[in-house]
């Protein structure tokens, strides 16, 4: 018996040694690759490919890889080819940090991703320490690029999406000016900072425009029954309902609202952008609903049409906003490398901060002093289950 125990112990130790050996080897070969292929520019893609927001991450990766392939086919940047190094951060901040450190060890010039604000925050200290620029495709929290305590802009953190306050403001303007709403109700996802931010700025702008907020209610992630609160809202008779949140909750919410006979227009943010909206809520219920987004794949702008076609040809699916933002992140980086005229991460960061009037798929953008892009937002309306671009609002 005792001898048997020892045998298992030996097997175990051997197994551990083997794993450490494999891991060690992996690191070694990566360094050798760097030495022999110096003419390549390594771009780290650190996104969520598993875990809670895996769909965002994989779409952004698809967009980024498409952009890199297009650039390489067109001769690369400064005569060099871009080489994507794709890693999964498991939708957690600690893994995002670990992945960033591993990528820094592979001499990347810049990192695309992660998608959520929290994961970008995890990655931030490593990027700052190694002086490598990070371009976040969709991190919308204000403190991603600016340090809360000191108020200083983080020198190596950039993004290509607009931030939360902008979306709320945009929808309030649209509701008040275009839809002529006077009494709005807010029914927001209180378990998400994103939705809270949108609701706050919607309220602020709507009140400034002379409107009244007649009801403020909240739901939390994974709620499925909204009837009680919706009945309460119905009794206040609002002529606009703002529902910032994610499609998982918003789709059944809208369906239940229409079933209760609430005909008022309903608005939301980019969390609505999912094919599930139509399949869950149904095209009829979605009529007279609007949301703010970064771009629409239905847009007739020739640049967007070309992008959508290329994306469909490669992946056989519709590119959503995350794919477009991933694509723009790479294009912005390429612009930065060209402006810096060197594949040097510090110089690229300096160049990125100065970019103006960059033409992306998600609109024309200029990077401001807080490393946020100044860019337009799109208002999209659901018409019988199809997304139709209503208007594009430049700030």
């Amino acid at each position, binding site marked *: 018996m005792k001898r048997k125990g020892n045998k298992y112990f030996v097997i175990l130790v051997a*197994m551990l040694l083997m794993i450490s050996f494999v891991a060690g080897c992996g690191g070694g070969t990566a360094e050798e690759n760097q030495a022999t292929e110096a003419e390549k520019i390594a771009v780290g893609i650190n996104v969520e490919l598993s875990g809670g927001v895996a769909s965002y991450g994989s779409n952004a990766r698809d967009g980024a890889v498409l952009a890199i392939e297009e650039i390489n086919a067109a001769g690369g940047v400064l005569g060099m080819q871009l080489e994507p190094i794709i890693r999964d951060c498991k939708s957690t901040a600690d893994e995002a940090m670990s*992945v960033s450190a591993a990528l820094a060890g592979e001499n990347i010039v810049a990192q695309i991703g992660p998608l959520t604000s*929290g994961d970008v925050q995890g990655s931030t200290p490593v990027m700052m320490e190694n002086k490598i620029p990070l371009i976040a495709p969709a991190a919308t929290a204000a403190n991603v690029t600016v340090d809360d305590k000191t108020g200083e802009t983080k020198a190596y953190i950039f993004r290509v999406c607009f931030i939360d306050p902008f979306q709320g403001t945009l929808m309030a303007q649209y509701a008040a000016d275009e839809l002529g709403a006077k009494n709005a109700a807010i029914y927001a996802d209180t378990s*998400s900072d994103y939705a809270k931010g949108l609701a706050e700025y919607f309220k602020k702008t709507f009140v400034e425009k002379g409107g009244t907020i007649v009801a403020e209610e909240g739901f939390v992630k994974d709620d499925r029954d909204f009837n009680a609160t919706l009945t309460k809202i119905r009794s206040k008779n609002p002529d606009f309902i703002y529902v910032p949140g994610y499609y998982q909750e918003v789709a059944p919410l809208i369906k239940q609202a229409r079933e209760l006979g609430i005909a008022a227009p309903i608005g939301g943010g980019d969390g609505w952008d999912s094919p599930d909206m139509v399949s869950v809520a149904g095209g009829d219920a979605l009529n007279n609903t609007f949301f703010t987004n970064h771009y629409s794949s239905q847009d007739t702008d020739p640049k967007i049409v070309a992008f959508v076609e290329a994306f469909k040809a490669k992946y056989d699916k519709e590119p959503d906003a995350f794919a477009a933002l991933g694509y723009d992140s790479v294009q912005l980086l390429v612009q930065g490398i060209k402006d810096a005229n060197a594949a040097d991460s510090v110089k690229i960061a300096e160049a990125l901060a100065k970019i103006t009037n960059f033409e992306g798929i998600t609109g024309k953008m200029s990077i401001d002093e807080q490393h946020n892009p100044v860019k337009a937002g799109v208002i999209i309306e659901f018409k019988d289950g199809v997304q139709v671009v209503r208007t594009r609002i430049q700030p």
Partner: protein
Amino acid sequence: MHEKKKTWLTFIFEVIVLAVLFTIVQYAMTVGLINQSYQINITSMCINIILAVSLNLINGFTGQLSLGHAGFMAVGAYASVIMTNNLGMPFIVGILVGCLAAGIAGFLIGVPTLRLKGDYLAIATLGFGEIIRVVLQNIDYVGGPAGMVGITRLTSWPWLYAATIVTILVIVNLINSSYGRAIISVREDEIASELMGINTTSYKVLAFVVGAMFAGLAGVLYAHFFYIIKPETFGFLKSFDIVVMVVLGGLGSTTGAVIAAIFITFLTFALQKYAAVRMIIYSLILIIVMIYRPQGLMGSKELTRKTFARIWSGKK
């Protein structure tokens, strides 16, 4: 007299081994032999060891299936960050307050729920973990759903190493004491041990509180290394990760918990490069281990001085 001298010698020998291990890693970090990426993984490894060993005390030795370990981690993390970041206290105060807060939370949840058994306890602790997460999400002082960002990095290798050693020492010594024997008797047969005059509930609460305190310690170290904490980090998936480590290592084996924690951290790191198939490989390895070692890697065996002595003499 001779026996006593021998114990002293082995004690000194162990201290030297531990000190040498510490110095080697410390030296390698200062001269840059261990790069940033490995440093992060060593940190994760130490934190996972503390979590697995402390949960093993509850799940393995006491036999109470707890699924709320990440909740205690969250309590420790938030309490300590409030101390260090918001109130400007030194790190040691953060550590003590973090452990204390998690211990109190463990006591408060333990007293009513440990009268439950098996599945009921599992569900109660799972619920507790979720309550912590939702409460933190709705307190604006700690940042709500976005969490607390920009935490100063105070967790260093000496702190990590000391915390890991202290965790293992306290739990191993607790198990080897008369309290530990009472705790194990609760696992083996609750009715029989009650007949023997053991107050089963109080021993269960004791194990629960000690386990929770060390989970809090892990939370403190986590928060002060990874720059950001948010309620979602400490969801039930995190709890399950720790349970996986404990079961993989072998319920009721501290050595097993340590080995499994190292193994899983390393596996996660080694599979980073294979993003697409990562979760498949990870799950396959777990399934294979469970098929061939259903009792976990170590079963309930421990690796002690005696094991080493036996291997040594066996070779001779």
